[in-house]
């Protein structure tokens, strides 16, 4: 299959131009001196300065970060448990409902999830704030974690676990000492996915936040509804930069880990 036809090259090039030009324009125009975002008036970093002086943005960023760290951590624990149950749990009562509740939130329109959670929180008299956003984010992101982790568990060689059990490890020890280190990359990428989903969410947070808490996407939303603004371009550039660095570092780390694993395997084969 290693022949790229001219058609393949053209579709890849156009596809990536389509994916990247809009973000490139945002980044370039965040350094624009003019308040008019579509007219270039020379290089300037003034919008970054104004952004950093804007306390309501900083407060919202802090709320968002707290919510994201807490919810993605709980979601990773719950999601890994759910993945283990789905792949290794065998048959149990209500299994179809369980897998339905794992897959449905992946595609469920956010307006429905947000509305239903809000009505639940109001019905139970829970005060809306950081806590309710954390509960809401944990719920949908644990499903994403579960999908990521279960795809790793599926390809996992079960005999390793069985060997540990035969050698006298308890189920929990076998999980902790054998399974967990092997699925760790999937668990980490599940956490990262849950973290970014939480950072990113506007709709569900708008429903569940209440008047006391404002997240960064809610703050961005209220200003972009009024039109394009250079401050938002600066903020976007910072976020795009952080994500790019994160993804590149993560992929280099996985590449190194894979090379290391291959070396270990070779060494093991030689000594055997």
């Amino acid at each position, binding site marked *: 299959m290693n022949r790229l036809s001219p058609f393949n090259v053209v579709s890849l090039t156009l596809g990536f131009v389509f994916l990247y030009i809009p*973000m490139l324009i945002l980044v370039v125009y965040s350094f624009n001196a003019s308040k008019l975002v579509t007219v270039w008036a020379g290089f300037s970093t003034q919008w970054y300065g104004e952004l950093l002086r804007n306390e309501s943005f900083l407060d919202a960023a802090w709320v968002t970060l707290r919510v994201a760290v807490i919810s993605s951590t709980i979601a990773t624990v719950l999601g890994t448990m759910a993945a283990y149950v789905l792949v290794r749990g065998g048959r149990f009562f209500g299994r179809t409902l369980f897998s339905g509740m794992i897959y449905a939130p992946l595609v469920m329109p956010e307006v429905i999830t947000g509305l239903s959670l809000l009505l639940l929180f109001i019905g139970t008299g829970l005060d809306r704030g950081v806590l309710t956003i954390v509960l809401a984010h944990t719920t949908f992101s644990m499903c994403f974690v579960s999908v990521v982790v279960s795809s790793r568990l599926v390809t996992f060689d079960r005999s390793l676990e069985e060997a540990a059990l035969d050698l006298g490890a308890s189920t929990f020890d076998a999980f902790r000492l054998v399974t967990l280190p092997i699925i760790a990359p999937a668990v980490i990428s599940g956490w990262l996915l849950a973290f970014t989903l939480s950072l990113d969410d506007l709709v569900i947070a708008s429903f569940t936040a209440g008047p006391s808490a404002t997240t960064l996407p809610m703050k961005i939303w209220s200003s972009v*509804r009024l039109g394009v603004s250079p401050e938002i371009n600066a903020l976007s550039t910072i976020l795009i930069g952080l994500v790019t660095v994160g993804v590149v570092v993560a992929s280099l780390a996985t590449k190194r880990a894979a090379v290391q694993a291959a070396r270990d395997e070779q060494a093991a084969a030689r000594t055997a």
Partner: protein
Amino acid sequence: MRRAALIAVPYAWLLALFLIPFAVVFKISLSDIALAIPPYTPTAKDGIWAMLSQLDFENFVFLTEDDLYWKAYLSSLQIAAVSTVLTLLVGYPMAYAMARAPEAWRPTLLMLVILPFWTSFLIRVYAWVGILSNEGFLNQFLLWLGVIDTPLTILNTPTAVYIGIVYTYLPFMILPIYSALDRLDGSLIEAAEDLGCSRFKAFWLITIPLSKNGIIAGSFLVFIPALGEFVIPSLLGGSGTLMIGKVLFEEFFSNRDWPVASAVAVILLLILVIPLVLFQRNQQRQTEAGA
């Protein structure tokens, strides 16, 4: 014992925070609006019979009487369907080319597809506002090329919504198709070509059917969330496009009519039941096939 706890914890969490909320939405969709906070008449305090006697389908009748809602459901279905097809048309050739690219390039190509997905959804939609507006970059570029004499109106039309959905959901289409194509055995195509199939015919008879699961998964991953999309029609569609997610959001936050908003959600959920079940079956089949 441990196994029971392992199953019970995530199960209970999802029941309490995913399934039971739907029951609450259903109950409130049957209540009357009240001018208090929360703005619906509470119905469980005076005993179960008093509560049941107060519930009725008034809000659903209201939805059938005002044709705004019907139009919003229909245009959401149409927009979601058209954008799913468009995303497939853009995504399939990209996934196909990625699967044919030299092995050494593939991790980089994959990373290039995933990177936008990690970037804020809201920001990626917002980027198009500056491109599609009347004095935006696209119009400036086309005017400079001399293709058009007067700026095109794209922002605040359904076209802008299509562009927005294709753009933001493209990775969801490419990734499952790529993973299906990546597993495809190249010798099957060689065999077909050796036996006299044209390249196009081999593609149509072998590649497409063998990547069917990827196409189905990708299409549901685009279609279902697009149907209830709120951010894209609000930022790019303006008043020119009607979508049910936007109607629900406005009914809730601007009109503060919680019972009607709940009724809108219940009907949207009913429309989604069939695609959701199909999506779950497809996912489960793939998980089991991989095992």
